[in-house]
């Protein structure tokens, strides 16, 4: 058996690499749809500001996409390096789903990304718009495959266990497992929100710097409409997702709430603060709001949920982490809701683009979409523990047999590499954002200036005069 610390190191390593990876696809999903909207508006209204924004964000999209591909390469192998017994056991189901994801991404890159990034002046506007739409659709199909696989691990069905491994019996049941629709909706909207907050912060930054152009105003305005519209939807979807989790994984919800046992006849309070103690089986320093737990979790005044003590100690997820990761996510979600409403108020007062205090707040909110998304993933993944396939295979039975030394060395390699490589990549993206959209006169495209009439790689769509490291442009 691998030691306890080897298991923790394997989890830490996988968590680290997958957390880094997810940031890029999330922005890819959001920006792809944003680009499709921008191009649609450009074709419809012929306002050049939409074309300008399209070309500006296409460059950033390209860098982000490239980093998603590079960090995704690691993911394709890490299931085997770190979770060999999971792969051997469940590869019959997660393998084909992952293969479809890769094929979709491959198809997308091969077929339409080149046209979308480099074809503005080479193909007709209709065909170009079609390519952009296909890129957006492709990112959503990729999301669907990955979330089908992840949701199956959370709420497995449609399988049989034959000779000690999983055999798919009904693919429709496997894919459309009980938590899949909620998770897919929650994640897609999270990607849209994260992107809107990122785009909004970019617009606010330029406005604060005194670059008050129609493009920066449009960027900010579109992003804040999106936040206003989507943040409440996300809260409702999150609520539905929570009820679904309560039905299928009640221990996860009990851990999120730091709820150990029911007091007979008492409704459930909501803990707004507390430090759950797994050893002592209680939540210390609890600050409660009476009845609110019943209202939120059971949509009734007196309803209760199972407490953690109803589950064997070996089957409980870590409440200390979940309690807080969930509250970070939900708290940031409330701030997003507030941001959208505040923006609406300022629009009504016609000072959306002038209030420096508000613009600073928009910048501060820039990374919160990604932070909330990570916190949400921590909640659902750590909340699945101690299982890797819920109720079927324990994480401790899934891990590969490695020494702590091998795992420590590889973790060190990953940490150093990821911060160096993706740190450079992210700082490059921020420099591109800081450069701002360029006004276009006539019908040039910034993407193609100085390029030959040949397709190229995604990163070629980013301008060359911005330095990845060092002094900048």
């Amino acid at each position, binding site marked *: 058996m691998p030691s306890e610390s080897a298991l923790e190191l394997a989890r830490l390593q996988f968590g680290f690499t997958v957390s880094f990876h997810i940031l890029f696809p999330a922005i890819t999903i959001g920006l792809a749809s944003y680009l499709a909207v921008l191009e649609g508006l450009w074709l419809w209204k012929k306002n050049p500001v939409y074309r300008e924004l399209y070309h500006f964000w296409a460059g950033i999209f390209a860098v982000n996409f490239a980093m998603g591909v590079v960090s995704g390469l690691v993911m*394709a192998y890490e299931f085997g390096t770190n979770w060999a017994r999971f792969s051997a056991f469940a590869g019959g189901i997660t*393998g084909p789903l992952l293969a479809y994801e890769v094929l979709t991404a491959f198809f997308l890159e*091969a077929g339409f990304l080149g046209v979308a990034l480099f074809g503005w002046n080479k193909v007709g506007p209709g065909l170009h718009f079609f390519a952009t739409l296909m890129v957006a659709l492709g990112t959503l199909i990729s999301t669907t495959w990955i979330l089908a696989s992840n949701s199956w691990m959370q709420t497995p069905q449609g399988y049989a266990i034959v000779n000690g491994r999983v055999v798919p019996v009904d693919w429709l049941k496997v894919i459309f497992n009980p938590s899949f629709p909620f998770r897919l909706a929650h994640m897609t909207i999270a990607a849209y929100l994260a992107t809107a907050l990122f785009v909004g912060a970019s617009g606010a930054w330029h406005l604060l710097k005194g670059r008050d152009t129609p493009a920066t105003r449009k960027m900010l305005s579109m992003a804040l409409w999106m936040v206003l519209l989507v943040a409440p939807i996300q809260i409702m979807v999150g609520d539905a997702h929570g009820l679904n989790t309560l039905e299928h994984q009640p221990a996860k919800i009990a851990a999120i709430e730091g709820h150990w046992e029911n007091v007979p006849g008492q409704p459930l309070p909501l803990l707004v603060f507390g430090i759950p103690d797994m050893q002592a089986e209680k939540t210390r320093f609890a600050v409660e709001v009476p009845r609110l737990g019943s209202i939120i979790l059971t949509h009734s005044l007196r309803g209760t949920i199972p407490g953690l003590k109803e589950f064997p100690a070996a089957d409980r997820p870590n409440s200390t982490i979940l309690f807080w990761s969930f509250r970070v996510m939900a708290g940031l979600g409330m701030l997003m809701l507030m941001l959208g409403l505040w923006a609406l108020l300022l629009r009504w007062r016609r000072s959306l683009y002038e209030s420096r205090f508000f613009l600073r707040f928009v910048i501060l909110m820039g990374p919160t979409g990604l932070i909330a998304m990570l916190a949400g993933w921590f909640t659902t993944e750590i909340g699945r523990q101690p299982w890797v396939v819920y109720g079927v295979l324990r994480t401790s039975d899934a891990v590969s047999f490695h020494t702590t030394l091998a795992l420590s060395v590889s973790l060190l*390699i990953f940490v150093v590499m990821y911060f160096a490589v993706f740190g450079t990549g992210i700082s490059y993206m921020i420099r591109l954002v800081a450069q701002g959209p360029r006004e276009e006169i006539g019908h040039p495209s910034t993407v193609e200036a100085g390029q030959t009439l040949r397709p190229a790689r995604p*990163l070629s769509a980013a301008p060359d005069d911005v330095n990845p490291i060092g002094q900048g442009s």
Partner: protein
Amino acid sequence: MGIDLPLLWALIIGFGLMMYVIMDGFDLGIGILSPFIARREDRDLMVNTVAPVWDGNETWLVLGGAAMLAAFPLAYSVLLTALYLPIITMLAGLIWRGVAFEFRFKADDAHKPFWDKAFAWGSYIAAFSQGVALGTFINGFTVVNGSYSGGGLDWLTPFSLFTGAGVLVAYAMLGATWLVMKTEGLLQATMRQLARRTVLLLLAVIAVVSLWTPANHPEVAARWFSFPNLLFFAPVPLLVAVAAAWIFVALGRGRQVSPFLLTLVLLFLGYSGLAISLWPNIIPPGISIWAAASPPQSMGFALVGALLIIPFILAYTAWSYYVFRGKVRAGEGYH
């Protein structure tokens, strides 16, 4: 069911792996050769010859990983566990190489040397790790109850270190002949020189691996040297010798394209020699593709997508190579 799904998937993955080795092989080869080229303009030109295609080449590796998990989960889990550190260093090398590739175009003059070095190092580490993995694969794995039961450093053998160096040589050869095809003038002449030396080295590598493998593994020796197999397989080493000699002559005569194509033939022969030695085992020495296969429902489901999309990818790949055919000249960078 009349279709032998494991066989079909083994062919698909085998084909994908070969595509990867050939195509990322010359990309990595350019990284391996770059420290030997002093002028930065020449290095830029070398990198420019693969700029439009390198990232597509690497995607075969991602597809290979996912297809392996879908079709042969047991092999995926055993091989990746046994090859843990070489796989990690390979991935690290590939990431490093890929990012350096892009950023050496974008960086200013002060930072270019840094990314140049990163590009070379990443290529060396990735290629060497792949070679070590290959040697370990040939050596075989110990499996108990469906899990790898060997140690974390079992991959570290004289043989696997030798195959690590061997893959460096093979990729350098691919890179050099690719550049003979894609460049002109002084750089081409340098590459021709390098290729003439490298082909001899490569021939030596192939010879050593071909002798070392049967010496280490009686079951492989039995397969090659029994009658009548010997008759069927004898053409392989013969063809290797012919191809190598032909490359040497073609380089001497100033041929542009044939050295690269013949290097591909040489590698294909090496690949088929390997297949003869190990077939039908996907986890040498004893677990076959049928024993390691995923359930038919899994293989069949994934096959639909693979058969729909892989032809499209191949067509696109062929098209992009067609678009970028011909010589690459300085100042004509399509990065």
